[in-house]
């Protein structure tokens, strides 16, 4: 399509404005992590003209770079959150592995193996996402206490895995549905077992879908708040829950909160980066009908 020079320019400007609108909050949040309180609350706001410092990061990660007024002692401060970042990584990673492992097999069965009431079964899986988590959190507290799962990695990984399972199953099923069943049938005729077809043929073809589902599971676990708040005490906590501890009786430590938030973006960003190639393919899978 032919476009005049002014149209192209307008399109470029509009594009940059949209990008700016999305990027500005991230920039401002990140810049808060490098500011002192005086610069955070300055009026009129300082967008770029502030003196950056690493004090907030020093306090959050328990490291001493010599910029804080007092020496930072590792693990000593109330805002020392490095272990909590590690908790988040462990929980999000293993709950994603759990959800995707189970969901892949379940979704393949739902996609390929006809059985009575299969359609209702899919609806039933979906319906579990319709219940508000707060209705489940309290009963879960009692169950977890009974099984000594409170305040444990196992407990939180289980609950996050279960939380993400329905979504992962439905997503994966739609990806498997897009792979022609004739391929399975040909392999069956050639003597391959169901397991071999799944492992050797269908799974590699659905890599994009698996990556997309895994990213979503990881992000949902990374940002989940209610279950972690209810089912943990002092043993472990994830980033969203500990972020609320920056709210103190004499105000909110915005700089520290931003430092932790900024640091917490990095692992999630890396996960997306690692699977980016498959992700793009997964997100566009099924967009063209044959």
């Amino acid at each position, binding site marked *: 399509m032919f476009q005049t020079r002014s149209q192209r320019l307008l399109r470029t400007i509009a594009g940059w404005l949209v990008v700016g609108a999305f990027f500005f909050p991230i920039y401002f949040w990140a810049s808060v992590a490098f500011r002192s309180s005086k610069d955070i609350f300055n009026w009129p706001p300082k967008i770029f003209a502030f003196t950056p410092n690493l004090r907030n990061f020093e306090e959050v990660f328990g490291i001493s770079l010599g910029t804080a007024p007092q020496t930072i002692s590792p693990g*000593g401060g109330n805002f020392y959150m490095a272990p909590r970042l590690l908790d988040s990584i462990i929980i999000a990673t293993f709950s994603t592995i759990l959800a995707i492992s189970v969901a892949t097999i379940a979704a393949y069965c739902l996609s390929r193996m006809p059985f009575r009431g299969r359609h209702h079964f899919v609806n039933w899986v979906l319906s579990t996402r319709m219940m508000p988590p707060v209705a489940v959190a309290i009963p879960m507290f009692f169950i977890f206490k009974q099984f000594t799962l409170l305040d444990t990695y196992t407990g939180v990984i289980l609950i996050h895995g279960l939380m993400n399972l329905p979504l992962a199953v439905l997503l994966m099923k739609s990806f498997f549905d897009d792979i022609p069943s004739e391929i399975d049938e040909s392999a069956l005729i050639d003597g391959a077992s169901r397991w071999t077809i799944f492992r050797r043929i269908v799974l590699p073809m659905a890599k994009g879908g698996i990556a997309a589902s895994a990213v979503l599971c990881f992000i949902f676990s990374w940002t989940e708040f209610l279950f972690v708040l209810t089912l943990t005490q002092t043993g472990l906590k994830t980033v969203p829950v500990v972020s609320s501890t920056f709210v103190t009786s*004499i105000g909110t430590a915005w700089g520290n909160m931003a430092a932790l938030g900024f640091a917490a973006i990095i692992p999630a960003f890396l996960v997306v980066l690692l699977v980016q190639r498959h992700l793009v393919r997964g997100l566009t899978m099924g967009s063209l009908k044959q």
Partner: protein
Amino acid sequence: MKDQDRKSYLASVTDRYVKGQISRRDFMASATKLGLGAGALGMGLTGRPMGGRAMAQEALTPNPEILAWLKDAAAPFKGTVLKLATEATPPSNALNSQLKKYFEEATGITVEIEILPLEQVLQKLTLDVASNLGTYDLYYIDQSWAASFSRDVFDPREQTADKPDLAMPNWNIDDFLPALVDGISRYEDRLVGVPYDIPVFIMIYRKDIYDKFNLTAPLTMNQLLENSKIITAEMGPEVYGTTGQMKSGHYSLECDWTAWLWGHGGSIFGADGQFTGNDAQGLEAMAYWDQLKATMPPGVDGWTWDGQGQSVAQGVAASMLSWGEFFPYFDDANETKVSGLCEVAVPPAANSLRTVGETGFGEIPGVGHQGGSSLAVSRYSKSPDAAWLFMQWATSADTQALITTLGGGTGPTRASVYDDPRVKANARVGAGTTRHLDVVRETIANHMGSEPDLPEWAQLSSDTIPVGLGKYFAGDYGSAKEALDDIAAQVGEVMKG
């Protein structure tokens, strides 16, 4: 030299050094005589004429005699793990980050402190009480929850009487300020723990701005209004006369309301237990509040105490009647623009004041609105004796003095701590100052107002009343009377259950 004398001498020497009255060489010589190591001498005082903590770290360690007693008393409980869920208050922060290690080393008991926002603490405690599971050994009980949890914790007097071998020598429950025991920890005939922290409303004002217009710290409600009007008229919109914590639906709005209500001779409840915030005095208070709000920054009805404090810290507001806990923060030159510029005074006198007999549910009218919390041992704890030991240590005079100096100048709940030399030594301009504590003590003794104690109060104070007030300031009601009548009706519904 006795330990107490040693501390007094050290405090005096340190104070003189911080004020520049003695040289570093003299200070080092004096400190060395006290047996302090080189580490104490490099405590970061050089080149800091105003900021920083004045006390040497060695002086800020727990009394060894108390630790020795704890070691013996806690021998049967070695290996126990105690859990406490608490708000991020200065005492909890100081205990968690700097002090609990001394208790743990002495006793072999591990203390896990979970620091959460206040509403999450309530959720955790409610779940623990409802389940009787004893997941927490110690409860941090905000004063507005005292009635709700009164039967779920041990009365410390019973613990002292029942377990004399675990009673800490000189713990002295009578040392807690009586007004705080009544206002925070007493419900009917029971003590719901002991007072743990005490944020209380005091008058904080910018001395430089007040001097500029020849104003003095307000002694009356009208003077506060007039001062605020003058400053707003002369310096607005850059600087406003006063500020508030008026976020709709938030507990902070209820706190502000009570100060003006009590200050105009009103009360939340009458002696018959009926809501009286909508009577003539209540309406007078609202009319005053409306005028005062006109002298505040425009964003005030979106702020809790966080925004209110920041408005003073960043130089946008010239005064506030609010939590004294903020004052040490204002003095921190690294964090605020007003370090050394603020002064404190007791709250303005009330126009008239109801007596306790004229109110309901133990409500105590007074312009100095009192917040605060108690620390108590849970009845469902699996290790109540170990928890009792920790509670005594955490609320002892020695530990409170350390909390006050290390925790940023928070107000102590014990009378003796206000006179502790370590606390006195920090009464200078700088981060964590204690130079406001005389005013805090005076406010607690003579100007303090305390909310009523009833099981429904948590809901009324954090939902029913601030939502109604928020709607009034948002213009949802035709008049203050209409708003307060509606609040009265809703309070009645809640009280009926």
